[in-house]
């Protein structure tokens, strides 16, 4: 945000408040893409990836018949979104239509289109500026996922590209030490109330229930990032983030997680259960390099 705009004046604060937009985004009220799982979650250009969409609706999980298409337009340098707006206007290469999952081959020039690679320098012309990675050092190939009735979704497949601005020594070290990402997994998704387990088949109505997930040790994988300023490799570990969804009730805190310095293997949030009915709760675990795991449970509020 523009720093000038961020500064405020006076006493507006006394009454200024965040506008109320109604239900939190955790409540699934219409068909919606919840996650797209790429297997493997990180690959080199020209390799094959399996894409699977997890979707939900007001009645629970959907069996999505999705259209998949690779975006073919790199985003401009000034674009803050993760994808060029043209990709949502048809600048895509179709992978498959009306399928729940599909295999796709990442374009051989993906690192040129979406990564740090630049075309060979033309005589008399200056070299081109490599794209900037994200904070984990990653570059991504965008995939448009269209599910009938749902908001258009963009999934990002992580690419393994060469380093920009790295010495040969650093590049060799990086290749030796960098471990490609793997998808995380979720061990459990449970309900608790006052420290006691709650049976999903008999969830108390209009009650605050704790939703918890656990994951195995080692789910948050270590990785290295090349620092172009110092030409050194910096050790990191994945941060893990859980997005919570439900078809009934409310989850006020819609995302939780663990930072890269936090080795805890669980996360939880609070669910205000509905007054009655059946439904589904989803937990989507994302690691900071684009890996995804999903777990859900069906519940009944008598």
């Amino acid at each position, binding site marked *: 945000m*523009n720093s*000038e705009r961020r500064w405020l004046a006076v006493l507006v604060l006394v*009454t*200024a408040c965040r506008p109320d937009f109604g239900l939190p985004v955790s409540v699934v009220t219409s068909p919606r893409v919840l996650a797209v799982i790429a297997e493997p979650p990180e690959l080199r250009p020209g390799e094959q990836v399996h894409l699977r969409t997890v979707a939900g609706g007001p009645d629970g999980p959907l069996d999505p018949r999705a259209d998949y298409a690779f975006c073919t337009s790199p985003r*401009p340098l*000034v674009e803050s979104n993760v994808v060029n707006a043209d990709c949502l206007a048809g600048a895509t290469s179709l992978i498959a239509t009306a399928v729940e999952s599909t295999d796709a081959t990442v374009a051989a020039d993906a690192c040129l289109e979406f990564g740090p690679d630049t075309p060979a320098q033309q005589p008399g012309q200056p070299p081109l500026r490599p794209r900037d990675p994200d*904070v984990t050092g990653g570059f991504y190939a965008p995939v448009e996922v269209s599910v009938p009735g*749902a908001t258009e979704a963009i999934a990002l497949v992580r690419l393994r590209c060469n380093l920009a601005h790295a*010495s040969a020594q650093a590049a060799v070290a990086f290749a030796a030490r960098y471990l490609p990402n793997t998808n995380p997994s979720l061990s459990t998704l449970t309900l608790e109330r006052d420290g006691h387990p709650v049976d999903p088949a008999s969830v108390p109505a209009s009650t605050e229930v704790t939703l918890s997930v656990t994951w195995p040790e080692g789910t948050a994988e270590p990785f290295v990032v090349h620092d172009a300023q110092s030409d050194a490799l910096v050790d990191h570990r994945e941060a893990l*983030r859980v997005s919570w969804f439900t078809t009934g009730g409310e989850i006020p805190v819609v995302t939780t997680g663990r930072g890269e310095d936090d080795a805890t293997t669980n996360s939880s949030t609070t669910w205000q259960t509905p007054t009655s009915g059946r439904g589904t709760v989803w937990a989507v675990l994302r690691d900071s390099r684009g890996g995804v795991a999903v777990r859900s449970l069906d519940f009944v509020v008598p």
Partner: protein
Amino acid sequence: MLLFALITALAADPPTGEVTKPPALLTFVEAEYPAEAAAQNVTGTVTVTIDLDETGHVESVTLVDSPRPDFGAAALAAIKRFVFLPAEVDGHPAPVTLTYRYEFKVLTKVVKLGPQVNFEGTVLERFKKTPLANVTVTVVDVARTATTDAAGHFEFIDLPVGAHTVRLTGEKLVEVSTDETIEPEQKRTVKYRVEEKQEGVDIEVTVRASRLKKESVQTAIRTEEARRVPGTQGDTLKVVQNLPGVARSSFGSGQLVVWGSAPRETRVLIDGVEVPSLYHAGGLRSVVSSDLVKGIELLPGAYGPEYGRGLGGLVRVETRALPERGVHGSVQVDVLDASATLTAALGDRVRVAASGRYSYLDRLLAGVVAPDVADFFPIPRYSDYQAKVTLALRKDEELGLLFLGAHDDYRRQVPASDPTLVKSEQSTQHMHRLALRYSRLLEDGASFFVTPFIGFDSNLTHLQSGAVPSNQSTDAVKPGLRAQYRSKVEPWLVLTLGTDVLSTSAKVSRSGSITTPPREGDAYIFGRSPGDDVATDSWTTQVSDVSVYALAEIPLGVFSITGGVRAGASVIDVGRLQPKEVGVPAIGGSSVNWTVDPRASVAFRPFKRWSLTASAGLYHQAPDPEDLSAVFGNPTLGLQQSVHTSLASNLKLTGTLGLDVVGFYKYSSNLVSRSSLSTPPVGQALNQNGTGQAYGVQVLLRQELFENFFGWVTYSLSRSTRRDQPDQPERLFDYDQTHVLGVVASYEWRGFTFGVRFRWTSGLPRVAVNGAFYDVRDDTWQPLLGARNAIRLPDFVQLDARVEKRFAFKGQSLDVFLDVQNVWNQRNPEEIVYSPDYSTRRYITGLPVLAVLGVKYEF
């Protein structure tokens, strides 16, 4: 004549024991000043001994010494009527004898009874220093006039005590105005040095610095008018926001948007020294104490060659002359901050002043507002200081030192259960300036000054959103020099020659997304997360500008020409032309940009009360150090340029009522803008393909202070557009405001000052959002953007009011003011905010009814 009594000694003659409580004078009786002595201005001290009984009554008075018999007799007669509180010896009332000195002293020639001259002076031609006859001196607020005689002398009898606006007019005189303060029972004597008229020049004077050169034998010139405007909370410099040609800035930004220019294109100078901003972060306060401000001047465009380095307007702040005698000061406290000012005259030649301010609003509100409010409106903690020392060297020769600085700081930590939502924010800005000023008015009337100065600026912006950083820091050293010589070289020609030098050496570092922070023209959406692509760079720059200028003022009948040129060289030096690579030595680069900026105005004055002035000029501005990065910007950027033109009609309806209509057009080119390419050439993330134009008309109907009333109505109709790249469509400028209407009025009645301010402005443009898509990787929605700046915030309408009461007593005063903003509680949208999935649009509304109470004590 005034009798003045002074107890100089107490010499009790107790019979026994110790005086435990001296007698205290309860009733003083003034002795009658002997008429003969008064007529001869004779003074003297009479010494007597007074015998008091145990009740404090005067038993007898014995004359000890008297310079004149009539003094002794008058003193004895008066002292016999004194009444004392009895003295005590060993704790009990007792008779005592004391020695008393009664001083007959002539303080002034002001007589309490009968009309007296309490304001007089002489008007001289500035260059020739000859008396000017038939000059009309008008005290405009009380509508009284006097005319100078053959000796250039004028006088007013029994002018009301207080601040007045004085205007000097004459057939051959450049019309000028100044402020004077009349103190109780004191006569003010002034000497004005003014210039004879050269057609057209006076037109410039009305919008530029007054040419009045004034010598005063009395201190205390106070300009109170500006801080009586509602909404300023008594801050004189905040009145700039209500002047014609100035758009309303985003709430709390404190930006100056002048004639469709970006805030960073408008220059602010304090005593000729450039400072980064007129206001503290948030616009809550100006960076200079109002007590040290003599005048403020806004030049929205098409100004002369004395100033440059900016494509936009110019704000000049002039600090006041310090009091010639005594120690004076003030303390102000309100809900925003507390401030204090102290001035002192050290002998006849040295005067010093110091002022400081410290805010506490952030702590005051910390326990009142919800924590998430800071997502929208972070409250800075600010402080500032000013120190000024002047040394009178010889007649019309002065050496001054000005030291000022400002500090703004905001820090916040936002914990969250989601690691990507954990935030750490800090924004810190420092500014320091040290300037030396030597000025001299030469015997032939020419003037000369030189001001070497040095500045230090530091800006740090840190935002850590989860693991994604967005940091930028700049440390800059800014030495510079201004010098100017002005002289009437011929009867028909006044020539000004000067030099203006500024060098900025900066160290800059930045990390984060190239799109954060956004630039003017970016698709800015309030509350949107910063981009997660990250880059890092640190670089150095040195931008040195050396300019010389010349200005000639030439009359040509009913026409007059003010023409000049500013020529110079800007050397832009960067430490590295390519992104940093380990093992590759940095290769820097320099470019020299020569500029010749002609600037001129032609005035046509067929009638005494009406004039038409056409002005034009060429202006250049160097790139900001932050834009010269090989990673985030472009180290080869050169100068941006703009052409200003204006046509102004100035009509004097009465002596104090004027109607100004100004049309303007500006065209800017070589503007720095973002490359639209996906992978631009290395070091060319920014380029200079941007162009822009701004045009409009502004009207000002202004009643200057007259019979305790002043006010103005201003309306601007304008349009400002930009084209970022030649192949891109033209868009509205981020700060474009089609309509700006402002009404200000203030009236003083029996010690109360009442004021109102009404504002109506068009809303600022914003990018349209046509939908959203779901970013599966980050579990967020991202907006599908429409045309840039294709929608606007709703109009802003607000009424503010102010009432102030001054209590004056014995050279001291206490001002109590109540500043009520948004009187009718208009819910003005200040920003658009979207629901997380961008399906719903709402507004953040600004200031509710708000009463700011403050007090100010002066002595």
